């Protein structure tokens, strides 16, 4: 095919998807094979000469990161936050009003005490994450496209996982002992009463609820006895998990998959019930990928920076989240 056709194909391909397919060894279609061959050749050449004139590697990683992080759905966060993207020179605030107007029984013809509505303004917490790595020329020369694909996929996953953990750690910190939406179970396993309180509070809001927690706790909820039907037992037998509890979709988080530093993906010893949308999450600016060639040490330094996100909860005490604490 002619030069410009290949360029067109590269422009139109979803790079992140291509990277994932390569790593997972999924069958590629004709265009994708072409694009992969072209990129493979390019990267191998860079490995040979140590000279990446157009910063191809960075451009590739950048395109994939932007596609996946800013365009792809991210199920749990999309359900519980209003999401958008703002420019680097922007900011946002969440404004909420609680109805605190009070009525009084009154004799005709006089006054009652005034009550007020106040707008509470929640400013977002901003976090900026960065991930760096390096690619040796020898690796590029031998594996070319596969090396870059692997780094891209893992960089995106690492950034997304850390954003998810950050947000839920913050929600965890917002609800303290003694609050109406806090429950200490006092044991290591979910009990019927705990699950009932969780379901009651979350359903009470009348909005789209979900329950999220480590898979071990979701499994405990699935195996609670007393209300199981044959259909539920069949489902457990076949799939190992029930999709809902008291009408609320369950989202188990893997307890064995860890982040790059060995820590878990989620807050441990917690199960959260989230009702509807609990705040606003914005991605700020553009992620930038920088590459620096190092001919002396025969490697390329890769830096994925400016992964900037900010979130604001609708209420300072996360009223629409129910926190169950296990020991």
């Amino acid at each position, binding site marked *: 095919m002619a030069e410009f056709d290949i360029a067109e194909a590269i422009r139109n391909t979803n790079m992140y998807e291509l990277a994932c397919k390569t790593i997972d060894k999924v069958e590629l279609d004709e265009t994708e094979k072409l694009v992969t061959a072209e990129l493979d050749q390019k990267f191998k050449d860079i490995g040979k000469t140590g000279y990446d004139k157009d910063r191809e590697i960075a451009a590739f990683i950048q395109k994939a990161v932007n596609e996946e992080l800013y365009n792809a759905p991210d199920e749990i966060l999309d359900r519980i936050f209003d999401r958008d993207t703002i420019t680097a020179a922007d900011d946002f605030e969440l404004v909420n009003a609680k109805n605190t107007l009070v009525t009084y029984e009154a004799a005709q013809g006089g006054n009652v*005490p*005034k009550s007020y509505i106040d707008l509470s303004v929640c400013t977002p917490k901003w976090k900026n994450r960065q991930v760096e790595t390096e690619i040796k020329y020898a690796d590029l020369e031998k594996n070319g496209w596969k090396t870059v694909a692997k780094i891209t996929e893992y960089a995106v996953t690492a950034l997304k996982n850390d954003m998810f953990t950050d947000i839920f750690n913050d929600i965890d910190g917002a609800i303290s002992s003694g609050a109406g939406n806090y429950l200490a179970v006092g044991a290591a396993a979910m009990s019927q009463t705990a699950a009932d309180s969780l379901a009651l509070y979350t359903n009470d809001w009348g909005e789209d609820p979900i329950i999220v927690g480590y898979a071990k706790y979701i499994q405990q909820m699935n195996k609670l006895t007393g209300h199981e039907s044959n259909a539920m037992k069949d489902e457990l037998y076949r799939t190992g998990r029930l999709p809902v509890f008291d009408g609320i979709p369950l989202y188990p988080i893997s307890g064995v998959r860890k982040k790059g530093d060995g820590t878990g993906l989620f807050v441990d010893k917690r199960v959260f019930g989230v009702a509807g949308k609990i705040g606003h999450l914005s991605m700020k600016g553009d992620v930038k990928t920088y590459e620096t060639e190092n001919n002396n040490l025969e490697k390329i330094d890769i830096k994925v920076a400016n992964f900037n996100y900010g979130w604001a909860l609708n209420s300072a005490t996360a009223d629409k989240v129910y926190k169950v604490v296990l020991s």
Partner: protein
Amino acid sequence: MLRTIIENGGKAGKANVKVTAASKTGMGVVYDVATGKYKFPAAETAADIYFLDKSPVATGIDAARTNTSDYQTSFNTFAAGELAIGKVFAPGEEFATDQYDADTFISTAKGKRVSIGTDGALDIAASTVASPYIFLGTMTDGSHTLARILVADTAAKNS
């Protein structure tokens, strides 16, 4: 923050007087005739008190904001030497303020008389201070808690 709960209509609020020290809306001050300014009382008192208030006019960058809370700092603080509105409450009126000591203004203190301390904040009055201001309890205003005060027509002391 100073909220009126029950107030006679059409009252005047003295607006051409400055505060001596940095203060907040809802604080109680006395009028110093010699300097022509509001100042904090020299000792705990409940006599001749003006309560500070401010109109929520947005200035500077805040002017670009569309939704603002009444509790925004710029709407509720005075720098030293800034003009303030001094409100006086008549017997039978009620108001609420957030400039109080949360440790002493608890439910068992309802019905006690309150006084203004040397920092402008409200305290439960010492038994030697006569005050017409009675603590009615706390009220919720959005995410904030205010102390409600009733103005009696006779100053009395706490027993």
